């Protein structure tokens, strides 16, 4: 497997006004990694994700996509990078005024010059990939929360992205649906060859799919560990990381 860097975060400081969330973040997401952003609730995982996908600009430091400094790039370069990202939001964030098929068709219509029929076919394919074939004409409010997440995933992979971001994919799902979603994520990674960045604190998912990670600590406001979560469990000496990864058993 190649270990080419895909995203490089360099001395990143995140803040809301004067209130610093995290500082001194340095890490690299390699191509085809399944990269986990973990840490206790409120440590700034989701905020970090917002910095990575271009929703919130950093107070200091930079985010590199390969060799382009995202926050100093031109609008054109930015939108080119953003177009290659797929994002699954915590709540699904499907456009509620559109049917599932229209949700997936919108980015396809924007960025490709396919005809209507082809877009329809592709939308149906993406829905079938996440196990929702037949639901093309449903509105987001007519399906369950787990189905909304899967539909959100179908929209995220609409443009065959190079990097997929997930904000707490298994939050609010029952263990079986969560497991199925994990499997689906793994399969999509293998078949699309995408890099995955996942915000989660679901231990089962972290160990099942993650092969690289950073651990954010809310007290010291910086990252205190990074690397393969399975190795972290074995080797990390920091008591905060150990407690997190063992559900507080190893005090």
């Amino acid at each position: 497997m190649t270990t080419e860097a895909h995203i490089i975060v360099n001395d990143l400081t995140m803040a809301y006004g004067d209130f610093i969330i995290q500082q001194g973040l340095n890490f690299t997401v390699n191509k085809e990694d399944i990269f986990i952003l973990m840490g206790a609730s409120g440590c700034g995982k989701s905020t970090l994700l917002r910095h990575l996908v271009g929703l919130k600009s950093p107070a200091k430091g930079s985010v590199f996509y390969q060799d382009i400094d995202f926050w100093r790039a031109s609008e054109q370069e930015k939108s080119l990078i953003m177009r290659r990202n797929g994002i699954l939001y915590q709540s699904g964030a499907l456009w509620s005024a559109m049917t599932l098929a229209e949700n997936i068709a919108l980015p396809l219509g924007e960025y490709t010059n396919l005809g209507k029929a082809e877009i329809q076919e592709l939308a149906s394919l993406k829905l079938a990939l996440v196990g929702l074939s037949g639901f093309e004409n449903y509105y987001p409010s007519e399906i369950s929360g787990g189905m909304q997440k899967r539909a959100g995933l179908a929209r995220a992979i609409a443009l065959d992205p190079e990097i997929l971001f997930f904000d707490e994919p298994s939050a609010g799902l029952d263990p079986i649906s969560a497991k199925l979603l994990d499997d689906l994520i793994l399969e999509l990674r293998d078949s699309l060859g995408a890099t995955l960045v996942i915000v989660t604190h679901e231990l089962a998912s972290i160990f099942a799919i993650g092969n690289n990670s950073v651990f954010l600590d809310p007290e010291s406001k910086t990252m205190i560990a990074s690397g393969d979560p399975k190795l972290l469990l074995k080797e990390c000496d920091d008591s905060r990381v150990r407690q997190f990864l063992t559900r507080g058993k190893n005090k």
Partner: protein
Amino acid sequence: MPKPHLQCQYHILPHKNGCLELQLSGDWVIGNNLPSMNDVQTQLDQDPATTHIKISSTELGMWDSRLVSFILILTKSLNDKKIAFDISGLPSGTKSLLKLATAVPERTGVRKTRQQKSFLEILGSGAINTISETKAILSFIGEIWLSFFRFIQGKARFRYQDFWLVIQECGPNALPIVTLISLLIGLILAFIGAIQLQLFGADIYVANLVAIGMTREMGAMMTAIIMAGRTGAAFAAKLGTMQVNEEINALNTMGIAALDFLVLPRILALVLMMPLLTIYSNIIGILGGMWVAVTMLDISLIEYYLQTKQSITLVDCATGIIKSLVFGLLIAGIGCMSGLKCGRSSAAVGEATTTAVVRSIVSIVVADSIFTILFQSLGI
């Protein structure tokens, strides 16, 4: 019938070697009057040699979190005085709750203190807010212009389906309420005019009053106020909910400008519909005035029609229509801006809607007075 609670109290028994015993008795539960802690204080003042206090609960009846909170507060004040506090005599449930309550020490610096702000502080922060608010409004106006130029160049992306839906919503669907209000405004104008004009025997001039009143002022203004409450609020609520649900973020990260996709079709639709609604409102208002004139003032339909035709010029109608274009822009812009600036909670959506309606109505009235002064000084 539940048993009435036994009165809860404590007795202080002085022991040797600077030890006090606190004997609890009765039911220490919510709903019962708890004894004050002052007795302990008095006893301590009398006995400055006290070094530790122990608690006994052999007489204690029922207890709940009232007891726990009592002990917790007592512990704190005794800690401050450096007096040892032995709670081993408490029931084991109370002890474990106390342990739980003290397990995580209070984080320093998290407690929020509500400070009374001084007048200068309020004034200062108000001024700073106004400046940043003004900046936000100006940049929003700028962005709308950019978006509009993109639209003219054919680069702005939105779904025409959405555009037609908004047209339907703020055009034809608003007709019933515009009809009702305009008719009533026409009636009111005619009534007020009739009473005054009858004094001079100049009944027929009711037609002039209603026609000019409707076309120059009331038609555009009332339609705008209706649309602010109806459509402006709907825009703010719709975009606000999309913001809460991260739908706007989803658009932005997909490289689709929310401004082009959501705001532009709404502004275009309302700016197109407002003049049409205003013309409609003018006609209905004049019909309302005609109704009063014909039934109350013995003016014939033909007379009223001719008088109306004579009294208004195309310029009168045009002033109303120009106003309505601006009102439409204001309502849609303010509604969409409030929605986009909405916070990430359900309360914020309510706030955004209220702000949208209040600001639209204020700006409509302000804009209308500016127009009136302007037209007056230009002699239009």
